[in-house]
């Protein structure tokens, strides 16, 4: 997208999960299918999509929590697949994660301080270093150093999400993957946590991959947005461009589903009908065709390839096949 070096580069990432019925393997769920994107240092890439579209699996694949079937993940110019053992551990401390569930992502038997200090303990820091760094982190995320001796059940959801963020920051990462970090919080607290994340990005020069189903939240934080549908990226461009000029029918439907405060501004495009199809047996050709208001014959036959109708705007849809062809012919 730009001349700058990508911090994170994902190519042809693929993951299928086996489905078992008793002892028989009855099929494979295609959770992530040929996902590709780049994130430049200092930017925020938002990933949006309905639940079950593979957003969280993508995050877990990048962090190595789930082993990919195929694909390349390059972080900081290092190919993660090629690394193992100590080298891998050293590279991977550069990417950390903020989880969705504020209470579920902290160990209830550890104090807040122990939770935040755990990554440091794993990397062999001394008790004194851990104590100092923990108080510093607590202040950085807007809590008090005294909170270190509290236990998770004594803090609110918003406070715990700050703790979660502090733990992700402990190893001074370059990249933080936020998996629905505010979905479990009240609206008023959401804003506080989002602003904290944005402040930290400015102060520390962090890069984010921000996963959410909430289009408003993604618009607020992201520089670039990738829209996922059933394990595939269907559209990818800068945040401004996406919200001003959505190209993929799915993106248009998604955007029109954002509740509008101003009745005059409400869009009136056709609502998407039907449920998201089963990833166990995805539709042939374009995976969105079963729900697409503009589906054509070709959509059932051919899988759409990624086109670039305008510079920096990638979309996988047959609507733009001729568009691009004409452009390249001219």
């Amino acid at each position: 997208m730009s001349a700058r070096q990508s911090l994170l580069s994902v190519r042809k990432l693929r993951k299928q999960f086996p489905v078992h019925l008793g002892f028989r393997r009855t099929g494979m769920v295609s959770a992530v299918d040929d996902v590709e994107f780049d994130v430049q240092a200092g930017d925020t890439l938002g990933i949006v999509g309905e639940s079950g579209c593979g957003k969280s699996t993508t995050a877990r694949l990048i962090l190595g929590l789930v082993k990919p079937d195929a694909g390349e993940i390059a972080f900081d110019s290092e190919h993660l697949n090629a690394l193992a053992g100590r080298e891998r551990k050293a590279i991977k401390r550069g990417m950390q994660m903020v989880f969705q569930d504020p209470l579920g992502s902290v160990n209830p038997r550890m104090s807040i301080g122990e939770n935040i200090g755990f990554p440091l303990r794993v990397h062999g820091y001394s008790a004194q270093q851990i104590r100092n760094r923990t108080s510093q982190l607590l202040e950085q995320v807007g809590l008090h150093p005294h909170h270190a001796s509290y236990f998770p059940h004594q803090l609110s959801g918003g406070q715990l999400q700050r703790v979660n963020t502090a733990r992700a920051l402990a190893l001074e990462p370059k990249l933080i993957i936020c998996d629905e970090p505010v979905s479990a919080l009240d609206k008023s607290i959401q804003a506080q946590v989002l602003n904290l994340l944005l402040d930290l990005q400015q102060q520390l020069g962090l890069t984010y991959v921000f996963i959410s189903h909430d289009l408003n939240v993604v618009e607020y934080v992201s520089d670039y947005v990738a829209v996922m549908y059933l394990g595939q990226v269907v559209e990818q461009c800068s945040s401004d461009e996406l919200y001003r000029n959505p190209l993929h029918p799915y993106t248009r439907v998604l955007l029109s589903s954002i509740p509008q405060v101003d009745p005059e501004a409400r869009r009136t495009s056709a609502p998407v009908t039907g449920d998201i199809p089963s990833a166990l047996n995805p539709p042939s050709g374009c995976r969105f065709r079963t729900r697409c208001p503009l589906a054509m014959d070709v959509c059932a036959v051919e899988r759409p390839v990624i086109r670039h109708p305008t510079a920096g705007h990638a979309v996988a849809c047959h609507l733009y096949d001729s568009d691009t062809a004409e452009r390249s012919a001219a």
Partner: protein
Amino acid sequence: MAVIELLAPLEQRDEIGAIRPRSYYREVGERLRGDPVALGSLAVVVVIFGSAIGAPLLTTYDPLQGSILARLLPVGSDSHILGTDEQGRDMLARLLYGGQLSLFAGIAPVVISTAIGTIIGAVAAYFGGVVETLLMRAMDVSYAFPALLLAIGIAAALGPGLTSTIVAITIVLIPPVSRVALSATRQVVVQEYVEAASVAGASPRQIIQYQLLPNIASPIFVYTSGLIGLAIVSASGLSFLGLGSAPPAPEWGAMLNTMRGSVYVAPDVVALPGLMIFVTSVAFNVLSDCLRDALDVKSV
């Protein structure tokens, strides 16, 4: 003024120091202290333990040295409060010293099998797949035999003695403990804090030690504290069958065995070791139930 305070974000309202840090175990302790049944059963356990350990201070009689002239004296005799056995040994002394052996034979297997079973279950659940299949199917083999029969078989194969009782009961208890650990770990291992530890670069050993074990400890503790009563009865049972501590050692089960011929002569004296086994095992079981409530474990 008051309104403005109410509107202030929640996070800023709680004053630092207004609430005290309270760990889970501090809360458990507070709950136990408010439970009279727990305190009662704990008191019984403490008294039994204390009297076993403090036996030399509580009686001047030798548990192994009897007098032919003072055989089978009834409970309440002048110099022997709890009477004497068939060889004229003081029953109180034998019961006190016997507690040392019986409690040890009951508790040691539970402690050892808890340690081993917990690690097996946690490792199986964390790694899953082939590791889980190998470990847990190996555990399942023992379920092919009735527990006490298996213990008798192992103790018989090892030859009589306190050690073989302990080994036999330990082996019998490991599979059920590992199953409890397995199911407890399965619930914990999917939590996001385990993923967070993995993202932080923790090794499987560090994850099991710091993230899993502290979170599966309470269900396992509840389960195994209930096993102490069972293990004491089993150990006494093995001794009764002649597979545990050999006479003249004053073990409760062995005492029942050697004295059973005198049951029609001095039923009250003969019943005493049985009473000790009964009281001890009930006290441990009641305490275990109270622990379950205090630890707030739904079911095991």
